[in-house]
Every structure is written in structure tokens, then in C-alpha cells.
């Protein structure tokens, strides 16, 4: 492999920011090789890890060092040559720290991809230049748009195997661009690469003089994510009430939580849901002292000028910009339980922001075929890895926004009341 070109600089690291991205694809697309290449080129693979992988590769009879073994950590995965679960990987350059949610392309693909995409700023999809777009590429693009991942990168991999033919790249790029347009897909970037040889990964390759964009790593380092966050709608789900029982701190009452969206400032008029009571922000505090403003994803403690009864699960917002307080919810639901399907009449625990309630499934309007986007209105239920539009009724109002406007106050999970397992993920379309 070529020598690494970038290395986290100890002194510069303090000012860098954080980008989370999800990768999707199967082993055949070269996804593990690409991740191995990113880790290698940023000096994140350590010698003992590389040695362990070389030993394991040799004992399996692999002809080359199988970088997939770096990411497949569990015994069953190594034995069966598959990836069971989402694996998280970390690397950094002087500009950014990266968290990769590496999701397998085959088994449990939808559940894992939805999980990885839920927190991602960017999704990276790979296709094999020789094969072009396949069903799986479209499915991954669809899930990326469903989860509202703000940035999408398509890597056309194995360009070395098509002699860096611009026509091959153009055909795949055109086809994907027109497909993505139908999906209301986010910001799209397409990059021709060879993960195996490292072309257009850490730096621009001279093999593709016709390609005028940036290398993958340059793009990951520079893609603008600060404005992806919703800074308009003030939403502060109350997580925990801090009321120290101590002789040194008396009469203290603060509402702790993580800002979901918008910007909070001392002096702001606020409304608290579900009570509808209004007050003003007296101060915004952290353990390091008060702050002038709070925005996502800061964890802070908000104090109000009035004594109002507020508890976990309540929402602090602005009087003129509030979420719905809704018991009737329509949502796209991805079902994640292999033991039983989602059924009409089924009752579940629902967790939404910091609020937990019970819910009943009113109806399944349709099931969506994630490959063809065909809607099956006769479905009636959702099995593992199926996605559909569902109506629910909750025992208490959820303080909710549309998912497309707010990924934090628009998402929820369903929990089986018997097994306690997380069985579904929901993205709210309408709340009333």
C-alpha cells in the first residue's frame, strides 16, 4: 500500500469538528477495502491490528491482506465471512474527527442501514463500476432520503478495472442523478475511485484527469455541515430536573437537556408544553459557567424566571413557534423485529424525545417496496426490514414535529412491552 499522507496533528486537533457518516454496500463493492484505505491513509490502522489481519488473512488462504477483517470483529463474522451488525470506526484528520457507522449490505440490511443513517450527517454509497447501479444502490439511496441524511456521496469504485473509462463513470453518474432526483435526495456528490489502489481517496489521482471534483477525503473534510442543523425552531426537551439536596446550594431548580433545535438565549420568552405555561429564560448554565446562547447539540441546564411545574418529557419552545401536541400520529415505520410483525391493533411503548408513552397501531396505510417504491395498500402488517406508512394513537400527547423538518423531534422508536426489545423506528409525517 502507498504511504500515508495525512496524520492527525496533536496541536490542531483541539479546533476540529465532528462528522458522522454511514457507509452502505456489500463486501463485493469494496466497502471494507475503502474503509480500510481511509483508516490506513489517515494512519488510524495500527501495526498490531495490521499484523493480526495479515495473520488471519494468511490462515484463511486469502491472496491479499483482507482489510475486511479489520472491521469484522466477532467470531461468527470471521467464521462466516459476514458482517452481523453496525460497527463503529473512528479516524481523524487535522480538520475533522470522523465517526463511521459501517453497515452491512446484505443481512438485516434495512434495520442496520436505518440505524446507522439515523445519526449520520452524510451517507456514502458504493457501486462497482463494472456492474453499475444495482437494486441495492437504489435501496440505499432511498433509505438515505427517508432518514433525511443531509449529504450523499456515491463512490464509483473499481475504476481501475474499467481502465478509468470516463464513459462508464458518466453513465453511472447520470443514471444515479436522475434516480436521486425522484427521491428528493439531499446534496449529492459522485466520485470515481479505486479503493484498492487508493486513487481519489486521500488525494486526486492522475488516472482520472477528466474528473474535476475533490478526492473523497477532501470532500469529507470540507463538506459544510454546520447549517444542516435546524437553528430556527427552538426545541428543548426536558431530560432531567436538577434540584440539589444540599446545604450549600439551596432553592436551585434547573431543567437539564440537550438542545434539539433552534437557539436559546437568556431573556427569551418561552412556552412549556404540554401545559402551555409561559415564562422567560433566566439563565442557561453549564458546569463551566453560564453561556450566552445554546444550540444543538449542546447539553445545558435552563433556568426560568417563574416557578412552573415542569418535568421530564416536557418541551420548552417559543410561544409563537411550538411543535404539535398530538395523540394521532402518521409516520413511516421501519420494522426491526424478527420474532413478530407490526400488526393493526398491536400495542407498544413509544419513546419520543425524552417522553415515553404507550401507543396502539390504528392502521397500516401501505407497505413500501424499497426497491421499486411500489405501495402495497393491502399489506396490513409489516415484517422484519419492511417499511410502511402507519397511523398510531398515543396515550398522551407527543410534542412532535414532522421528521423532514426536525430529525430529533420527528423520530421515535417502538418498544415491545413483553420483551423490551426495540422493534420499530418511526419518522413522523403528520402529528395532530
Amino acid at each position, binding site marked *: 500500500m502507498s504511504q500515508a499522507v495525512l496524520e492527525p496533528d496533536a496541536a490542531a486537533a483541539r479546533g476540529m469538528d465532528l462528522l458522522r457518516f454511514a457507509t452502505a454496500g456489500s463486501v463485493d463493492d469494496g466497502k471494507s477495502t475503502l474503509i480500510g484505505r481511509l483508516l490506513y491513509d489517515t494512519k488510524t490502522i495500527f501495526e498490531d491490528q495490521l499484523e493480526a489481519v495479515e495473520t488471519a488473512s494468511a490462515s484463511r488462504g486469502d491472496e491479499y491482506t483482507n482489510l475486511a477483517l479489520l472491521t469484522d470483529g466477532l467470531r461468527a463474522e470471521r467464521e462466516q465471512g459476514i458482517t452481523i451488525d453496525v460497527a463503529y470506526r*473512528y479516524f481523524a484528520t487535522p480538520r475533522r474527527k470522523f465517526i463511521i457507522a459501517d453497515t452491512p449490505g446484505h443481512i438485516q440490511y434495512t434495520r442496520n442501514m436505518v440505524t446507522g443513517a439515523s445519526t449520520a450527517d452524510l451517507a456514502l454509497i458504493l457501486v462497482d463500476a463494472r456492474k453499475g447501479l444495482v437494486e441495492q444502490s437504489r435501496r440505499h439511496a432511498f433509505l438515505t432520503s427517508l432518514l433525511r441524511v443531509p449529504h450523499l456521496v456515491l463512490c464509483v469504485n473499481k475504476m481501475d478495472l474499467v481502465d478509468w473509462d470516463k464513459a462508464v463513470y458518466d453513465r453511472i453518474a447520470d443514471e444515479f442523478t436522475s434516480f436521486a432526483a425522484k427521491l428528493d435526495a439531499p446534496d449529492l456528490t459522485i466520485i470515481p475511485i479505486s479503493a484498492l489502489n487508493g486513487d481519489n481517496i486521500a488525494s486526486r489521482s492522475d488516472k482520472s484527469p477528466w474528473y474535476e471534483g475533490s478526492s473523497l477525503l477532501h470532500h469529507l473534510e470540507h463538506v459544510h455541515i454546520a447549517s444542516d442543523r435546524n437553528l430556527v425552531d427552538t426545541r428543548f426537551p426536558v431530560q432531567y430536573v*436538577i434540584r440539589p439536596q444540599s446545604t450549600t446550594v439551596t432553592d436551585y431548580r434547573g431543567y437539564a437537556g440537550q438542545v434539539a433545535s433552534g437557539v436559546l438565549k437568556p431573556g427569551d420568552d418561552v412556552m412549556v408544553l404540554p401545559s402551555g405555561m409561559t415564562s422567560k429564560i433566566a439563565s442557561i448554565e453549564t458546569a463551566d459557567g453560564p453561556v450566552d446562547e445554546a444550540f444543538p447539540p449542546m447539553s445545558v441546564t435552563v433556568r426560568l424566571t417563574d416557578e412552573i411545574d415542569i418535568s421530564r418529557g416536557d418541551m420548552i419552545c417559543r410561544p409563537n413557534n411550538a411543535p404539535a401536541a398530538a395523540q394521532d400520529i402518521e409516520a413511516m415505520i421501519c420494522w426491526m423485529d424478527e420474532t413478530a410483525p407490526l400488526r393493526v391493533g398491536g400495542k407498544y411503548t413509544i419513546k419520543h424525545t425524552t417522553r415515553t408513552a404507550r401507543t396502539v397501531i390504528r392502521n397500516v396505510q401501505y407497505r413500501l417496496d424499497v426497491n421499486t417504491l411500489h405501495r402495497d395498500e393491502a399489506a396490513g402488517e409489516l415484517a422484519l426490514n419492511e417499511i410502511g406508512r402507519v397511523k398510531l394513537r398515543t396515550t398522551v400527547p407527543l410534542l412532535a414535529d414532522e421528521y423532514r423538518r426536525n430529525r430529533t423531534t420527528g*423520530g421515535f422508536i417502538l418498544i415491545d412491552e413483553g420483551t423490551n426489545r426495540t422493534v420499530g423506528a418511526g419518522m413522523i409525517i403528520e402529528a395532530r
Partner: protein
Amino acid sequence: MSQTKPYRVSHLDALEAESIFIMREVMAEFERPALLFSGGKDSIVMLRLAEKAFAPGRIPFPVMHVDTGHNFPEVLEYRDRRVATLGLNLVIASVQEAIDTGLVRELPDGTRNRIQTPVLLAAQEKYRFDALFGGARRDEEKARAKERMFSFRDEFGQWDPKNQRPELWSLYNGRHHPGESIRVFPLSNWTELDVWHYIAREDIPLPSIYYAHDREVVERNGMFYAVNEFIKLRDGETSEVRRVRYRTVGDASQTAAVLSEADTVDKVIDEVAATRITERGATRGDDRVSEAAMEDRKREGYF
């Protein structure tokens, strides 16, 4: 809303905010959480995050030390000082005591990493802790890369990697039946370098053995072990005084030092940024047993 203002959050601030969110979530949803505190740098950072999460109140849960009896004196002294300063309730789960009462049996090789798991589980049951914070990070080891923030454990404390709850957005599912529990890993997304940057930024004191010092050591399998009451010279071995520091702090009979001149936090950061060996690979005899050593121990209930 004006878009001219960046509203930028540094990666350390983002990690801190996430960890604080997780700790508050546990405090809100569980009845009896406790924090596993070894006196190692990760649990020290976790304790600082707990201070921040509940300020100006005190940390509202006890800390538990699973004490293998093979300790570095500097670490025990640090533990007791921190606990006193923060006014914490310290629970000690003693492996020696468990050996004395017959709960576990000393292994022929005298190592205690494996037998600390039943001791941890017995203490958890005795005090009915339903959530235990651990300082494990996903970058440490390949089995840990697949861990959840909220890791469900059955009534035997076992981890089942094929049966993990999906974690979406920041919606963590801590539901469990009586006897079952959740291990919580607020530092999941931190790397070794992030931890050191945070220690520097927050000016967090550490046990002195994390910084370069002269120590009598013996070299085994390329690792440098301190010669002390737990590690005696074998026939044919010779010891020497070398400039070393500890990159991890575990059982004193299993944890090796690395050669180092880094005697300040900034020098340690430079060293960690340039190192080419993982911290566990460089310092932990217990992880060298097999390719899946950590996975096996986690399945048994190790954190």
C-alpha cells in the same frame, strides 16, 4: 435566522454533550445506577463528565471499584482522594474477598482478570444496581466496536452480540426485567486521543504512573512489566531500570508499561498521536490470549 453565525461545535464539545446526555438519561430512567471506577484515565474522564452532568448538584450515584487486589499504590491513593473530594459513596467489590469466601477460585497462573467477572456480577446483585456505567470505548478493541451505548445484559450479566437492540437517533432503550441490567458506555465514541485532549483541556489530574518515570521493569514478549510483589523475576530473567509510563491501568499483574519520555500531558498527546500500536496491544497481556479474548470475556459478563 441569520446563517452568518457558524454555530460551530468542536468535536470535544460534541462528545462531551453526548456523554452528558447519556448520563442524565440513565439517571432519569433507572433506579439504582452506579459508575465503574478503576482509577484508569477513561473512568476518571467519565467521573468528570458525571460531575458536569449534574452540577451544581453532586454526582447522584455511587462508584464501584472491582478490586483485583493487584493494584498500583498510586492508583488506589488517587481513587481514595477523588472519592473524598467529590463526597462519593465508594463500593468495593473485592476479588481477594471472593477468593477467601470461595465465590471464585484463584487461577493456577495467579491472574485475576477472568475471575473478576463473577465478583462484579455478585456485587451488582447485592446492591441491586440496574445500570452500570463503564468507560469502554469502541476504538479499543474489535468486539467493543460493536457495542451499544446501552448494552443489554441478561440475568447472568451476559452480552449477546447477535441480539443487540438497534440504537437510533439519541433514543436509548433502557427497559429491562427485574434481574436484567444495562451496561452504559458514555465514552463509546471517544478515541484514546480524544480522552487525552479532554484531560489536557479540563486540566484533569491523573495517577502519576500515566507519565514517564523511572521504574524497575522486566521485558516479556516485548512488553515491559514492573517488578513488584505481583510480578517476580523468573529464572534467567534480569530486570533493569527504564524510563516508562503506563498507557492503560488494569490489573497490576497483567498491565505492562511502555518506554516513554512523555512526562507532561502535552508530550503524552504527541506520543499517542504518533504511536503505531494500539493501547491494548501494547500493554495488555490479557488481550493476547486469543483473537476473540475480549469477545469471550464480554459474553461472560465483563464490561
